[in-house]
Every structure is written in structure tokens, then in C-alpha cells.
């Protein structure tokens, strides 16, 4: 090509999006999982007791809790079913280990579709290195997707 300074960003656009980098284009304005996920979801550690976590989660008005390590890397998930378990059990035993997680850049409409089809009430949103961004609630995803759809219909 005759160019002497050529660099290859090998990890590419996926890496950029997964890290939450700014983007341009027709899809730039569409709502994405990272912007809709609730960052204030309760979290807990592996060695806590389920009973104490359940009380804390209920007091905060939630019915789900994400299990993370000291660096906020997601290790597991406690939904209503898991939270109703033996209060004396350790979180490590009670939790749903290794839940499916999704990146912040995933378009909300597509994720909402999957959550509805598979009857999944919520899903952790994480960075590409597994750190928690927030918990995406199915109802929030549907609401955001609906709003985006309406906004598209209103554009001239």
C-alpha cells in the first residue's frame, strides 16, 4: 500500500463496544443493555449466609442479588427461588453459579426478545472481563425497547 505506519487493532469493534467506547452510526442512539441495567442491584459475597443476604435484599426492595468477588466479577446469581433457600446455607452453595451474562453494548430490543422467549426475569450485564455493570430486568428491557420502537416510528 506504500504506507509505513499501519497498525492493526486486532481485538476490533467488538472489543471497543464491550468496553463501552463511544460510537457513531445509525445504531448509535439505540438503547443498549448497559444503559438500561440497574447498577444499584444488591450484591453479596460467596461466604455470606443466605438468611442475612435475603433480609438485606428485601429491605432494599429487590428480589434478586448478584454474587461478586472483591473486584466485582460476577460469580453467581440469586433469584427469588434461590433466595428462598435454607437461611443458614452459604451463598456459594445457594446461588445459581456462572449465570449467562451479556455485554453493555448489546441492543436492548434483541435482548428483550430473548428474555421474553425464554421467560428469564433478569440477566447480569458485565464488562468483557466479567465485572458487574448492573442487572437488566426484563420489564425494563421491554419498556426501553418499546420506547425506542415508538421513537423510530415518530421520526420524519
Amino acid at each position, binding site marked *: 500500500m506504500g504506507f509505513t505506519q499501519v497498525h492493526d487493532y486486532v481485538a476490533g469493534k*467488538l472489543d471497543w463496544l464491550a468496553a463501552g467506547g463511544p460510537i457513531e452510526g445509525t445504531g448509535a442512539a439505540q438503547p443498549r443493555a448497559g444503559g438500561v441495567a440497574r447498577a444499584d442491584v444488591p450484591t453479596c459475597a460467596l461466604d455470606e449466609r443466605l438468611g442475612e443476604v435475603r433480609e438485606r435484599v428485601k429491605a432494599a426492595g429487590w428480589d434478586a442479588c448478584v454474587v461478586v468477588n472483591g473486584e466485582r466479577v460476577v460469580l453467581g446469581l440469586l433469584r427469588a427461588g434461590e433466595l428462598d433457600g435454607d437461611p443458614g446455607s452459604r451463598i456459594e452453595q445457594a446461588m445459581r453459579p456462572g449465570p*449467562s451474562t451479556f455485554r453493555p453494548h*448489546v*441492543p436492548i430490543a434483541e435482548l428483550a426478545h*430473548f428474555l421474553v422467549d*425464554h*421467560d*428469564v426475569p433478569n440477566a447480569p450485564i458485565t464488562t468483557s472481563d466479567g465485572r458487574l455493570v448492573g442487572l437488566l430486568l426484563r420489564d425494563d428491557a421491554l419498556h426501553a425497547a418499546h420506547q425506542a420502537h415508538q421513537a423510530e416510528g415518530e421520526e420524519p
Partner: protein
Amino acid sequence: MTQAAPTAGCATCERAIDRCELCDRPDCPTAVCYRCLAVALRQATPQPHDHGG
């Protein structure tokens, strides 16, 4: 004689999987494997990938 547990095949690629990657149910009628789910949600590249032109 014991019956084998139901196993799900990925509804997209038909790869044998023992449960749906998204909902974790072995009897999910639209079970999806990790790879197909990641591709569908743009977290991975479908193979082979066309660079266009």
C-alpha cells in the same frame, strides 16, 4: 430400566447441549447454545466472517 434425562439440542445449530444457555432449562423448546446466543446478541462473530468489498 432408567430413562435418560431429556437433552436439548441447540435450536439454531443443532449442536448437542444438555440445557439452554439462556434459561438453564433442559427441556427448553427453543434451547440455544452459548455460541449461537453470543452471535445473536453480537457478542461474537459468526463463522465464516465476510469482510465485504
